């Protein structure tokens, strides 16, 4: 279970502190699939990073009683001057996973071929997303945090992600941020809308969508 209790996050800006999350509470149980909707800049990615623990809140409390992935997003999570393979090695070391067992899967799933031996900073955002996705599938988590990342890549990559994440790992919890209605509708049973720093849960995905469209 993951539990957020009255989480507050502020960023410093030139024009004073900006409150992104203003008392967000949330509970995610084993196997829950939660979609988060919100306008651009509403704080969805911030919320995901707070859940992952990559950022610390200014107030409130985050309790993680299951293993949580890092935020799978377009960018981030990789050191740019390291090659794809060295990043895999780094992440395996950090999460205590077996590199030699993980590499074949990453090679196969990411389809990056010879580019795995190139520095990650030379990758396109789609290539980064594929690498991120592949590594996160090589390491087992109880809860996956997905920030728009399933919206990249071609149809075939979508299909691979769907099979690997939503079929093979259907028992895991997932928190998905996406602008695209169908992603959340397809995969999530619960949906929240993040607006003005407040997170509100709706009885079903359609209700959340209706509310989101009226913002």
């Amino acid at each position, binding site marked *: 279970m993951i539990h957020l209790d009255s989480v507050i996050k502020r960023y410093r800006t030139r024009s004073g502190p900006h409150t992104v999350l203003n008392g967000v509470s949330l509970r995610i149980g084993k196997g829950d699939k939660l979609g988060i909707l919100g306008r651009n800049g509403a704080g969805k990615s911030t919320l995901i990073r707070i859940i992952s623990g*990559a950022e610390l809140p200014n107030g409130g409390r985050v309790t993680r009683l299951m293993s949580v992935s890092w935020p799978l997003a377009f960018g981030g*999570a990789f*050191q*740019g*001057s*390291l090659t794809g393979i060295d990043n895999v090695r*780094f992440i395996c070391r*950090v*999460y205590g996973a077996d590199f030699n067992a993980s590499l074949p899967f990453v090679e196969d799933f990411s389809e990056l071929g010879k580019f795995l031996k190139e520095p990650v900073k030379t990758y396109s955002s789609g290539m980064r997303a594929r690498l991120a996705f592949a590594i996160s599938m090589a390491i087992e988590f109880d809860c996956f945090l997905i920030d728009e990342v399933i919206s990249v890549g071609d149809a075939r990559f979508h299909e691979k992600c769907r099979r690997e994440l939503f079929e093979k790992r259907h028992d895991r919890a997932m928190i998905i941020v996406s602008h695209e209605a169908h992603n959340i509708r397809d995969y999530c049973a619960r949906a929240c809308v993040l607006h003005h720093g407040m997170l509100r849960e709706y009885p079903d995905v359609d209700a959340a969508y209706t509310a989101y469209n009226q913002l």
Partner: protein
Amino acid sequence: MDRTAPQPDFLRSLAIQTRVIGALVMREIITRYGRHNIGFMWVFVEPMMFTTGVLAVWSLVHTHAAKLPLVPFVVTGYSTVLLWRNTINRCGNAIEPNRALLHHRNVRVVDLFIARLLLEIAGATVSFMTLTTLLSAAGVMSAPEDVLKIGVAWLLLAWFAMSMGLLIGSLSAAFDPVDRIWHVISYLFLPLSGAFYMVDWIPAHVQSWALLLPTVDCTELLREGFFGTAVHAHYNLLYLVWANTLLLLIALFCIRRVSVTVEGE
């Protein structure tokens, strides 16, 4: 699939942090030295080359006041300078190239610093040990008198460098100019640092001021270990421990503040 919930306890946290720091050290080695030619050995070959170069120049120019044998004086002086200077300097820009790695929960700002500190301290230490061993085996200088004393001095200086590195690193993360200003200060500080003089040689009324600088106390102790009774060393170990502790506490406090504001890219 029912993996047990992660329970925060000290040993487990220690294991994770060790793992993370190990991964970061490897990451630093790969990007700094690559896998070509001698690879990670540059960690200590670089400072060794530096000290050897300075030694060569000093020997040729002969500007040294002949109070002590030149070779061990320069080796002790430059090795200590490299220990504190490289260690602290490497922390100034530790966060920026690693910002993306902060996406991983267990990678914390303090780990980025610790990985760099360990690498620099290890490099300076191996360099110092190798040079001393080689030069005394070759008969270019006499072997050190008291290895234990040298070890204590080295550890105390490494502690100072670590505390200052964490302090400069976290301050520059909060406030960019700190790194730039530090480079100027460290350069100006060089002649005061104790590497090029003994406290005994300077006028009595400034001696107590010199001893306020932790690097001076450490270098004095180190040289007493090297030269034994041939030098009259001045140092205050109690002050040194207090100063190091205080610096470390301030540094840890700053890191705690910075950790909340620094975010992944």
